């Protein structure tokens, strides 16, 4: 995905077919992308896997961490976000992200998916598959933000916020990195969305947590998670689904996809162990929530790197991802005093930055990676600076626009439920339901 439009990735499958053609006398120059059933099979599957990450993945992962009285509200927010963003993406988001040649945003030429027919291809897969695969990324990104704002935001405000955010922040950033925009041209390496998805979601979460303010009782009352079995199951589905997220971002079933899967598995496992051990040493006990959080942090950090690094990079990224986000979620948050309730920032933004920067180092062939971007002219330092620039730009753009959206909503419809509703729990008063 990282190379989309910049340097069309035919992948090994394609090469195999080309080889076949050559060996039978056809000339390679004739080859236009034709549909490849193997690649298409994998991308259909990947799309299902990434959807699985959000529902029920994120819904369970986050739902299990809140108090009983808000459990359904988290599930409802995630489920409704899935539906809402799907509609927005089909209507306008896909066009803004992947059509046209603007530096910052696409165009409106494919509103309502105009022009996408049964025969439209995107590389070697149907455009319908590419569009839907990308839709699942557009869905999970705002869904991750929910972790920062649970237990206090009005359901109506939440939907409007995330809908606007998808149009005004997600689509432009996706365009810049993957849709042919300036960051792509600049040479950023973001294989499966460390910047587009995780830094983007995490930073928006932090801004939202700050604008919304803390939950009543935060820091003084215990807020025990309702059921960590849900959280474990959610983390597991995130892990499994992430194979589609990372290996699917190759848009083909080839050697790069295979390596993306392998390094994903390694980095995730290492990060889960690293978080667990760090916690065991520093806090006395290895918790299930810790392992699950470490795994997610590892998945986040390997995301931008997955098609670029080899096993060595995966080990290093895993260790960093197990320790640094742990410190952010446990110490930084307490120090600074914001209530990023379920650590959308601590895990996704911090993990995403760790991953994005390390990608610029370990993609180097010297470390067993697939090679730096041409724009870096072989210099790890240059690649690192490109990564840094991309990360920095994303953080600033994201933070500013998110802040504006939220302030507008705050003065118009209001963001938070009343104190009484917060005490009663959002399940009953926002949804009329209860567990």
């Amino acid at each position: 995905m990282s190379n989309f439009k910049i340097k069309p990735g035919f992948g090994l499958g394609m090469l195999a077919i080309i080889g076949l053609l050559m060996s039978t006398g056809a000339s390679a120059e004739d080859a236009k992308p034709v549909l490849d059933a193997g690649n298409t099979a994998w991308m259909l599957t990947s799309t299902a896997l990434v959807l699985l990450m959000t529902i029920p993945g994120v819904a369970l992962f986050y739902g299990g961490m809140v108090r009983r009285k808000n459990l359904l509200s988290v599930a409802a927010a995630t489920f409704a976000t899935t539906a809402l963003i799907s509609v927005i993406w089909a209507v306008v988001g896909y066009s803004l992200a992947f059509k046209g040649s603007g530096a910052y945003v696409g165009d409106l030429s494919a509103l309502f998916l105009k022009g996408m027919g049964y025969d439209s291809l995107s590389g070697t897969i149907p455009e319908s598959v590419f569009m839907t695969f990308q839709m699942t990324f557009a869905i999970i990104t705002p869904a991750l933000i929910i972790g920062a704002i649970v237990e206090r935001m009005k359901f109506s405000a939440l939907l409007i916020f995330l809908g606007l955010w998808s149009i005004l922040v997600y689509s432009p950033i996706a365009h810049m990195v993957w849709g042919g925009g300036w960051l792509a041209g600049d040479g950023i390496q973001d294989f499966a969305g460390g910047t587009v998805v995780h830094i983007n979601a995490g930073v928006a979460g932090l801004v939202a947590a700050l604008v919304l303010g803390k939950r009543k009782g935060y820091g003084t009352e215990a807020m025990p998670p309702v059921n960590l079995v849900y959280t474990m199951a959610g983390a597991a589905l995130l892990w499994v689904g992430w194979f589609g997220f990372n290996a699917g971002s190759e848009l083909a079933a080839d050697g790069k996809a295979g390596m993306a899967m392998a390094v994903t598995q390694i980095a995730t496992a290492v990060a889960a162990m690293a978080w667990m051990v760090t916690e065991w040493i520093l806090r006395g006990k290895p918790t299930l929530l810790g392992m699950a959080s470490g795994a997610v942090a590892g998945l986040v950090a390997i995301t931008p790197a997955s098609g670029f690094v080899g096993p060595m990079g995966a080990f290093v990224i895993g260790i960093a991802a197990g320790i640094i986000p742990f410190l952010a979620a446990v110490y930084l948050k307490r120090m600074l005093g914001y209530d990023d309730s379920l650590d959308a920032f601590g895990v996704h933004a911090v993990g995403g930055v760790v991953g994005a920067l390390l990608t610029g180092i370990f993609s180097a062939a010297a470390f067993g990676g697939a090679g730096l971007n041409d724009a870096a002219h072989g210099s790890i330092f240059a690649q690192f600076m490109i990564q840094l620039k991309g990360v920095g730009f994303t953080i600033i753009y994201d933070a500013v626009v998110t802040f504006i959206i939220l302030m507008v909503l705050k003065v118009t419809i209001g963001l938070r439920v009343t104190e009484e509703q917060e005490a009663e729990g959002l399940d009953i008063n926002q949804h009329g339901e209860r567990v």
Partner: protein
Amino acid sequence: MKLVTAIIKPFKLDDVREALSTIGVKGITMTEVKGFGRQKGHTELYRGAEYVVDFLPKVKLEMVVDDVTVEPVIDAITKAASTGKIGDGKIFVSTIEEAIRIRTGETGPEAL
């Protein structure tokens, strides 16, 4: 000895416990209960069908104290649990004839 039973709103539990600790109450037994009273229950939805749930979540605190402590306990609970809204709950007082600490076999006020 007296048994003081207080039925309060769940989110007041922490405040009440703290207030009771302050005045030296050493032991409390807490039960999650459902209350039916003047406070109107909430409405739940089920595939568009509404039904009113009359029984609301409440917390029942029971503590056995010696006779002189009853007044301060009532005061502490009343203050800490009150929101001024319907459904704040009740306090009931009754007599306990004997108390035994299982661990030691102590009886009477010493057992509390």
